[in-house]
């Protein structure tokens, strides 16, 4: 078990390190932050001073080492734009993002899983086909398109809901729905196929053969097995709670982490971008870790791997 934990931790750390390095390389190679932030018209001495104060005049690998060393000291740097600590800028955006992504996640799970289970139990019927067609639509239509369509219908045409901003809770409805629909579709399809796989297993026939009513066979025998693959997808969705709203926040001008990321990237505001990526990677790694723990709880074959072999 200790080995398992150590291995997971190592893999998680490696993932974070890769993400951070990748972002550093891409951001620093693609443009000069001094020019982007000060503008091309800025006098050369101002640009030079800016470079010096942010350490941009050092060789790139020295900057990289400095940056990594700072992370190990727990310093995530300051925004080149307004000099505030990057972590502060990011932290104050997190509630706004979670205000969208958490309800959206609830929507995905609350609609996607029951719809998938339901479709699997009514396989081949008209309703199954309807649910699955909707699901295909739901995850092929890009979220910005869906967002715009929803705005057109519910804000512009019907005038029921606001199209952007975050003044009242009604402002959150359209972005939440936009995000939730696609995720629910993915989850519905996935749950359905996981259920169909399970329903065809011999142990389901055994359950019926011992006289278990069908509804109970589904609840007690099928669902716990279908939950195992489904948890992977849900875990992935949990992993995107922080960064999953980039597109939707832009479409609905919602001041969350995603919008901050877009602005920081276009400014080449390295510290802020890194800070967000670090956060995203950490959420991903953490949710992966939780998923693995859940596997162990849901599937005794994994939990007792070492013990079972002894028998």
């Amino acid at each position, binding site marked *: 078990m200790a080995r398992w934990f150590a291995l997971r931790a190592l893999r998680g750390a490696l993932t974070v390190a890769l993400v951070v390095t990748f972002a550093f390389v891409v951001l620093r190679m693609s443009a000069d932050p001094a020019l982007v932030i000060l503008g091309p018209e800025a006098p050369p001495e101002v640009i030079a001073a800016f470079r010096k104060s942010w350490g941009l005049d050092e060789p790139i690998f020295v900057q990289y080492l400095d940056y990594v060393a700072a992370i190990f000291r727990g310093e995530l740097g300051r925004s080149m734009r307004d000099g505030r600590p990057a972590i502060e800028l990011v932290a104050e955006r997190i509630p706004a993002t979670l205000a969208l992504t958490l309800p959206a996640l609830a929507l995905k799970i609350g609609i996607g899983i029951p719809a998938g289970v339901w479709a699997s139990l009514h396989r081949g019927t008209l309703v199954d086909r309807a649910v699955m067609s909707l699901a295909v639509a739901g995850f092929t239509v890009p979220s910005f398109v869906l967002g715009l369509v929803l705005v057109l219908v519910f804000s512009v045409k019907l005038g029921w809901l606001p199209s952007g901003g975050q003044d009242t809770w009604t402002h959150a409805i359209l972005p939440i729905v936009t995000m939730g629909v696609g995720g629910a579709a993915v989850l519905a399809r996935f749950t359905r196929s996981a259920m169909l796989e399970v329903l065809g297993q*011999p142990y389901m026939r*055994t359950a*019926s*053969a*011992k*006289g278990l009513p069908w509804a109970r066979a589904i609840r007690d025998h099928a669902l716990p097995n279908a939950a195992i693959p489904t948890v992977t997808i849900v875990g992935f969705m949990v992993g995107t709670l922080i960064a999953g709203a980039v597109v939707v926040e832009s479409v609905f001008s919602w001041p969350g982490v995603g919008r901050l990321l877009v602005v920081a990237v276009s400014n080449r505001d390295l510290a802020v971008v890194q800070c967000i990526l670090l956060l995203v990677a950490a959420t991903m790694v953490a949710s992966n870790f939780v998923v693995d723990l859940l596997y162990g709880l849901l599937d005794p074959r994994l939990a*007792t791997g070492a013990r079972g072999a002894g028998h």
Partner: protein
Amino acid sequence: MASASSLVRLEGLTVAFDGVRVLHGVDVELARGGTLGLVGESGSGKSVTWLAALGLLPTKARVEGRVLLDGEDLLAASERRLDAVRGGRIAMIFQDPASALNPVLTIRRQIGEALALHRGLSGRAIGAEAKRLLDLVGIPDAERRLSAYPHEFSGGQNQRIMIAMALAGRPDLLVADEPTTALDVTIQAQILDLLDLVRRETGMALVLISHDLGVVSQTCDRVAVMYAGRIVEEGPSDRLFADPAHPYTRGLIGALPPLDGSRRRLVSIAGTVPDPKAPPPGCAFAPRCLHSDRRCAVAQPSVETIEPGRRMACVLAVHRREESAGAASSLARKETAAS
């Protein structure tokens, strides 16, 4: 063949999948406490027969005929009634015990379900009775192993657990569908012995489905031979084994390995089972039969009683038996040499 004491009687049982008939009217009867072996090559309809009888086929299957349990037609019974019958009156165990048990539920839970459903037990009583059943089927250290999962047992042990689960509802009939096919040779005999033992102790009836005529004739009083969705011969095992009437049965026996040799998958009759989508005209076995002639392709042979308690469906064999009883045994020898 109808008798008042019969426990289960299948009458004209037919099954079709997507319009393709795979079972063409199966009639068979089982006495209370009786033992019936069901043999035939893969695809002959052995499993489908009993899955259909218990309403365990997928909904796309069209099942017709009658399945009488103490005179009650199960094909006309409600789903609720069937749930009470399944596991309570008729239990079934399957070929691959590892996949027939739910991988995420403990053994205690899986046996306990049957105890709760059919015996009305709960709480402590379930644990005690489940332990007794595991002891009965020969799982060592039963108390502790109740909380284990199927993957922590060997294949043979899992089949023992399946048997314990089947016994939990105190059924009047156990249908064992190739219970040893997936197991090691040494384990196969142990499981068959166990089945025989529990059958004697509980007095329940047994249907043993197998490819292996040898296995079946050791365990069962009566044997039914299936071919392409029909029973082609049925009778007491000793009679059927000593003096097989149908050419297919004789082929099966001819294909038996020598007594001293190792056991292997049998059935070395030339040719293959016909595709149910394109059945041959007349007798389904005719294309592979060493004796077939024009008459065989004309019509489905009717089922004839050839001795008291024995019936068979073959036009030619009936004639032959009528002509001379002695010639049959020499014919059988010739076939053995040919196959």
